[in-house]
């Protein structure tokens, strides 16, 4: 087991390296660079100085190697070009806190509540609770997050001024963003759990448990939950990626100073160091969550013996 984890972590670094390389070279091929706007009206010599300062006059592969050197020797990813003086790593650290908060709660709530909904929905199949929950689920899966956000913002802030439209700093600012971001995972997990529980409930071992006289609650806890949660786990990883994308939009709609909106602005500004930094960060988080999910999967499903395959 430990061997497997080590292998996966090494693998993670390998993938990160590849992603970084590709992103780096991709980025330098896009039209425009971070300094164009800044140096537009400056004399030639000053322009050249600027470019030299940021190393943008060197060939791309040389810049790349310098970049790598920076990471491994000093643990830095450079300065943001758009906001000179701010280190990329610091900015990421600061802004990921708010994004992480919303994202984490959204996934957590979505998973827990969605799983619960799914179980209820399956156990009361075709009755009213099922119909309502399935309806909510299917809407959650189909309506894009920016639509939901816009509508909720309109209804809950303008029409009925319950919540603040935008801003950050107090708990009440987190309500709407979390609500918007959790709808999609909630809907997805409801659907997955529902179909999974329906499969499990028809199995003979459930009937056997009932015949043994087990209380219903116990059956759900001991047999149904454990066996039906597996498909949901497999999509937990990719779900995290979806939450990233959701965060880009939500943060801009609600003016939340999170990593998502800074990523988007750095993309538009062509702020190379920031783009690379955020890309690496997001990819790392994603791969890490995939690894955690795989480990969880092995812990819960004894049928899987990783590393002992034929």
């Amino acid at each position: 087991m430990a061997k497997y984890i080590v292998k996966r972590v090494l693998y993670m670094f390998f993938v990160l390296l590849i992603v970084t390389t590709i992103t780096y070279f991709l980025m330098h091929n896009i039209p425009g660079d971070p300094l164009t706007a800044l140096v537009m009206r400056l004399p030639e010599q000053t322009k050249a100085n600027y470019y030299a300062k940021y190393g943008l006059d060197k060939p791309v592969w040389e810049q790349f190697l310098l970049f790598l050197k920076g990471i491994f020797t000093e643990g830095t990813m450079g300065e943001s070009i758009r906001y000179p003086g701010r280190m990329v790593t610091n900015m990421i650290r600061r802004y990921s806190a708010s994004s992480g908060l919303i994202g984490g709660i959204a996934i957590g709530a979505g998973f827990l509540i969605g799983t619960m909904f799914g179980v209820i929905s399956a156990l009361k199949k075709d009755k009213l609770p099922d119909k309502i929950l399935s309806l909510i689920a299917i809407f959650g899966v189909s309506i894009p997050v920016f639509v939901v956000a816009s509508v909720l913002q309109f209804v809950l802030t303008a029409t009925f001024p319950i919540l603040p439209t935008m801003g950050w700093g107090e708990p009440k600012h987190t309500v709407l963003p979390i609500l918007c971001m959790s709808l999609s995972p909630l809907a997805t997990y409801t659907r997955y759990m529902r179909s999974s529980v329906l499969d499990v409930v028809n199995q003979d071992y459930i009937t056997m448990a009932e015949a043994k006289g087990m209380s219903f609650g116990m059956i759900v806890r001991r047999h149904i939950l454990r066996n039906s949660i597996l498909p949901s786990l497999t999509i937990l990883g990719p779900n995290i990626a979806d939450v990233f994308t959701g965060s880009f939009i939500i943060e801009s709609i609600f003016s939340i100073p999170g990593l998502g909106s800074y990523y988007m602005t750095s993309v538009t500004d062509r702020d190379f160091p920031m783009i690379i930094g955020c890309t690496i960060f997001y990819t790392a988080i994603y791969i890490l969550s995939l690894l955690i999910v795989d480990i969880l999967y092995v812990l819960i499903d004894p049928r899987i013996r990783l590393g002992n395959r034929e």
Partner: protein
Amino acid sequence: MNQTNLSDDLFIIEGCSAAEGDKIGRPQTTYWKDAWRRLRQNRLALLALVLLIVIIFFTIFGPSICGYSFEQMSSDMNKAPSAKHWFGTDSLGRDLFARVWIGGRVSVIIGVVGAVITTIVGAIYGSISAFAGGKVDSVMMRIVEIISSIPYLIVIILLSLMINDSGITSILLALCLVGWCPTARLVRGQILQLASAEYVTAARVLGVSSWKIITRHMIPNTMSVIIVNLTFRIPGYIFSESFLSYVGLGIKTPNTSWGMLASAAQQNMFFYPYQMLFPALMIGLTMLSFTVFGDGLRDALDPKLRR
């Protein structure tokens, strides 16, 4: 009690043949016809299908019906829906009805074509990987794993940056470049499962050539999974396209799509909510219908649910 006299000649022996003993009384039908029959019974899925057909109809003919060009600006700016402009007008006085349906063409085409292309590519890749087996399979799947490790949207964002022209083909390219991976995994898994199926072994024992086994046994049995997968991917692509356009990385003016329209309407949401309403409604309805239809299709094609 009077015991009724039952003489033997009251009873005629019907006879029973062994073959009749387990005859099944069900009309014969092919797999696809049976699936279609079950699909028809699912009213929700049919409703979704009808809705889709209506939407597609309007994307094709909508702009011509209302009589305005989608680019035509007028002085009737930001007007609410009325008899003159069925969906109202935008900030430049352009008729929204026409714009929504023109935008619909782009969104739906990207959704469907994107899903179809990635499904085909993924299916071919997955099949080759499964058949090659051994080292080739390992390497091919490693590549898929690596690509899948990158958050999808990050790739798309970066790719869209590279693309200068804002036409449909470039957006499609960006979307399809990594979208084929889940399908490849799915198809490979299916084929590996089928490869150990008893009837495939039987065909091998009979001496059927590998090629015939593939085309006659494996592909038809994989089709249903691929088709359902395709139907579920379409809303995903519609969403990706609208997301991209919403953040300004996708379709750019003068072309338009639902995502673009929603994005443009974002600022005016509080004053002219109808401008956001229609594109958002269309996106939602289309995605919803594809999802519901996909659900129905999956249930109809699953032999375990046969009644």
